[in-house]
Every structure is written in C-alpha cells, then in structure tokens.
C-alpha cells in the first residue's frame, strides 16, 4: 500500500532534490541527452524542480516515480552522474522506505537498491544490493549486465530507520567528511534551514563520525 514520505525525510530530501536538479541543469546538453536516452527517456527523469517535488510528494506511487538527479560535489570524479528515487510502502502497520540509486559511469548503468530491514527472512537488517530494475523496469540491455546478482551480496548498513537509510545513501555516493556532511549542510543552509542542518548533521555524526 502506498504511503507519504515521513516529514523528517521530506525536509531533507526536498532541498537535496532541488540542488540535484540545479546541478543537473549545468551538465552539458549532449551528455544529459545521452544519459536520458540510456535511462529510458525524459519521462523517467525529474528534469525540473517541480517534477522532483511532485515525485517526492507521491513517493508511495510507483506510477509517478521518477529518477531525481543527485547533486554533484567538486572533486567527485568517480562517476558522471547519480540519480535516486524513493519508494515508500505501508504494510503491517508500519512504513518502509527503499531507495533506488542509479549510477552512470562511462556510459554504463549501475542500479542499486537501498532497503530497510525486512520483517522476516534473511535480510532482517538495513542493506544495499545490486539491482537490475530501474523504476520497475528490468534492464537487460548491455548497459546493465544481466548476470548481476540482485539478492546477494546484501551489504549491511549502520542505519536503523528510514532517515538513517537515506543518510547511508548520501554517504555512499558522496563520502562523509567533505561529502555527505557538506552536502547536507549546503543544501539546507541554501534554503535557510540551519536548524535542520544541525539536526541532520548530528544524525550523520552518530552513524559515521569518530567516537570521540
């Protein structure tokens, strides 16, 4: 069953998504065009702020899901571009959040799926695994190898809730010091949400900071 994005996540995801769309608009047109084509066309990508906001507002609905560009940070040259898409589901009295993350590197597509702990089975811990699906579409084209295993390895993550899971997504993509720390601060401060920034930074610190 579909559900809305929890407010605590929405307050971070919205500025993050807007920053991603803004950065995306600075990517040269021919590079953007190639990426859009390889991901299945413009309908699948949030190309404007409003599209990203709508995609986040309807995160429980797979039909309106779109890939949202992630912000770039200077110096991160490991991949050309990454996109994310949250999927919120309601079931058994609780809300679960998962993230599809798509990395484009040298024209190839690497889809990941970040998931909260399953209620039963072997994956009863927050984890990330490879995927061959993007927005419900299974990729069998040569840009995504069809031999990719999608259930294992399921790498454990230190998060224990949905917000923590998203902070793991950020840190996977940007690193921590000079990475997710800066991104979280910058996207929120840009929108005059320094109180939020402090709070999310504390959560990041609890997950990835030094013990001292």
């Amino acid at each position: 069953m579909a559900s809305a994005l929890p407010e605590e996540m929405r307050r971070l995801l919205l500025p993050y998504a807007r920053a991603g769309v803004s950065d995306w608009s600075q990517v040269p047109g021919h590079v953007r065009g190639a990426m859009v084509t390889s991901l299945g066309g413009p309908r699948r990508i949030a190309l404007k702020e409003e599209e990203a906001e709508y995609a986040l507002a309807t995160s429980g609905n797979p039909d309106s899901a779109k890939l949202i560009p992630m912000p770039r940070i200077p110096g991160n040259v490991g991949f050309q571009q990454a996109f994310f898409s949250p999927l919120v589901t309601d079931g058994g009295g609780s809300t679960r959040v998962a993230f599809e993350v798509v990395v484009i590197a040298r024209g190839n597509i690497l889809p990941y799926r970040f998931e909260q702990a399953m209620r039963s089975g072997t994956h009863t811990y927050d984890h990330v695994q490879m995927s061959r699906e993007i927005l419900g579409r299974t990729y069998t084209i040569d840009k995504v190898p069809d031999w990719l295993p999608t259930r294992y390895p399921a790498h454990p993550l230190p998060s224990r809730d949905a917000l923590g899971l998203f902070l793991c997504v950020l840190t996977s993509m940007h690193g921590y010091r000079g990475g997710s720390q800066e991104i979280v601060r910058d996207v929120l401060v840009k929108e005059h949400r320094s109180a939020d920034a402090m709070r999310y930074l504390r959560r990041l610190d609890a997950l990835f900071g030094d013990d001292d």
Partner: protein
Amino acid sequence: MRVLVCDDQKERAEEAREAIRRSELDDADVELLVGRDLTNALAALFRRVKESVDNPAGYAPAEALRFDGFDLVIFDNNLSELEFDGARLTAESMVGYVRAFSDCPYCVSLNKNPDVGFDLRYLVGDHETRADLALNTDHLENRGLWTGRQDDALDGFLPWYWPALADVPERRREQVRFVQERLMGKVLSSLGLPEAEPSLSYLSRHGRGALVPSKSAGDWLFIDMFLERDRSLPAESLDSRKALASSAAESEPVAEVVARVIAADLDLWFRRDLVAPQEMLVDVPHLVMRMPFLLAGDPSETKAWQDAVASESAPFGLDAEIYRAQVAKARFQHGMWVPRPMFLWPLLKENEVLDDLFFKAASSETEIADVVFCEDRSMFAPRVPGGDQSPPREFTAEFEGASARRVVAVVPGYEYRPWSRFVD
C-alpha cells in the same frame, strides 16, 4: 532633509506631501513643483542638457535649476497632463536627466507600479525604472522607509531591499565623488571585488554582463559604463555620450554629469546583482542563517537573531572574538555602495576555521532556533509560529544564484507581486 515633490496634478503632489508628513520624519522640508511651474523647470533642464550635448567642452551651467539644492526629488510617474508639446510624459523619460544635470542626488519615481507593494522578482522594487527607486505614495508614510528601522515600520512592513531614504542622498554624494575620482579606473579592483575566477563566479552571469556588455567584468572601466548604458540619458546617441566622456577629463561640470550617471547605474547594479542575491556579498542576517554559530547570543532564542539585524556597529550581534579573528577581514570596505554592512561571501565560505566551527557546533548539541528571515519585515520569525498566526511563505526570486529561495511574512494589506513566485 529637503524634498521636492513633482507632479502634473497639485492634488496628487499634496497627497504625497501629506504621506511624508504622516511619517513624522523629523527634519523633512517638503516643497511642491506642479503644473506650469514643473513644465518651466523641465524646459530649463532640457535647455541645459542641449547646451552640454551641443558643446561639451564649453559646458558651464550658470543659473541654478529648480531641482538644485534638494536632497531628494520625487516624481509621480504619470505626468500626462503636463503642458508640454509633443509626447505625453512620464517620470521615466526625464528622471535620469534630473539626476545627471541637477545637483539633487537621488530621484524617486512614484506609482509606476501601483499594485506592487513587495517585489518578489528581484528584491529591488522595480529593476526597470530609470529612477533610483520606484515607490508608491502610500509607502511614503511608512517612517521605516526613511529610517530603515524595524521599530519605525508601519504595520511591520519594511522590505529589506528598501534603502533608508534619509541616508541615501549623502551616500549618493559619496558615490559620485568616488566615481569622479576614478573615471578611467577599473571598476572591480577599485571596489575591492574579485576580478577573476573562482571568486568572480559568485557574481551571476547577469551581474557580469549588466554594466559593460562588451567587456569581461575584470576589465570594466568606470567610463565604459557611461558609454555603454543609456539608463539615465536615453535620448542621447553614442556619439553624444562619447563627446561628453572625452570632455570629462578637462571639464569639472561635465565630469560631475558623467560621474552622477555612472554612480546611479552602479548603485542599481549593487542592489540588483550583489545585495539582492547575497552571493558575492552577504549581509549580517543572511550570514547568520548560513553560519548560526556566529551569533553572540543564544541561537536557540529568536532575540539573538534579531539583535544581529538591529545592531549598527561591529561586531553586529556576532561573537566578538570570531568576528575579530575571522569575519572582520572579509568586510566590504566601500560602505557608500551598500545600505548596511556587508561581507565578501567567497572569503567566508572558503574560510577553514569557519567551516570547522559549523561542524563543531553541530556535534556540540548547540540548539538552533528554527527561524527564517522575513524579507518584507526585515526581521526573523519562527518558521512555525504559535497560535493561529500564519506561517511565513517561501518564494523563489528571479535572479540567478544559490540564494534565490527566500521568505516573506506576508503583511496583510500589501500586494506581493508576481504571485507566481510563491513556491507553496
């Protein structure tokens, strides 16, 4: 302060004078120039303009103009009933000439956009006006408009982008002197602004092309602005402007005209491309929103934030030690161009000590009040107010840059335009 109100209709001019009287400005001496007297004053002005353009080298104004000796000239924009041969007049068509050829430093256009109380587009009021500032008659009774102080604001309405009208004449005179001493000088270096990347990128593409479209910003000369802009002297050809520019080196009166034109354009550039975007320069309230740990007081209390808005002397409500060691050296040094203290944001953003302090504050459990700076009230307010108060509204201004998303309280009875800029 001597104010001259100009209008084709006496009743409207009297309304403006009455509005100023209601502001209870201490030393306002308001005179009216209306109807036939205004026609005659403008005719004398344009005779002077013609003399200067026809013979720049011999330009030596002998008689005073009716506009001389005032600190502020206020024109109603609609002058269609003025007895003038030819086209129907608006303030827009002449206000630049008044500014350039009289010694009155600052010109306001009234009622050009009567349905715009707050400008959500560029945070300047009206970025297209040839006047120094576009206002409406009812704004004049707001004492805060003249003093810049929130506790003087009528209904609490005080756009942060309004310059304090009582201060602007003297600031403009300083601006003109600054320019006149440097007509052949480079603009950015004279102002202490970065001339090259990466810091220059904090100036938007619009800002880098607005003053001298033919040159890179680092190469601008003050005199280039006189040649390439026609905001003040719209009817003069490039050849006429060139003739005036080349006479400026020899003729003090021509140099004054040229400097007044440039100073007015540069002032608008500061407001439109530096003060409003808060990218190259940042003022105290926008700075503490980015670095709340700078506040001297308890950042969990709204009062500490408001103290930083109201403070008029260093360290401006900021922690004195951090201000002295890290912030003061980034202060923009030419205060006549900005309405309040401003700092070079590229220097502060790249300051490693300040960067560390942010993350230290985050890990030290410092509580930060969830407040927003309301651009229409010039004050901080809780993002989520208590009781049945309406929350502030976010909007996206039209200028380029990372700080286009802003907040207004939305004061009842005032028009915010265009409505489409609101994001919720």
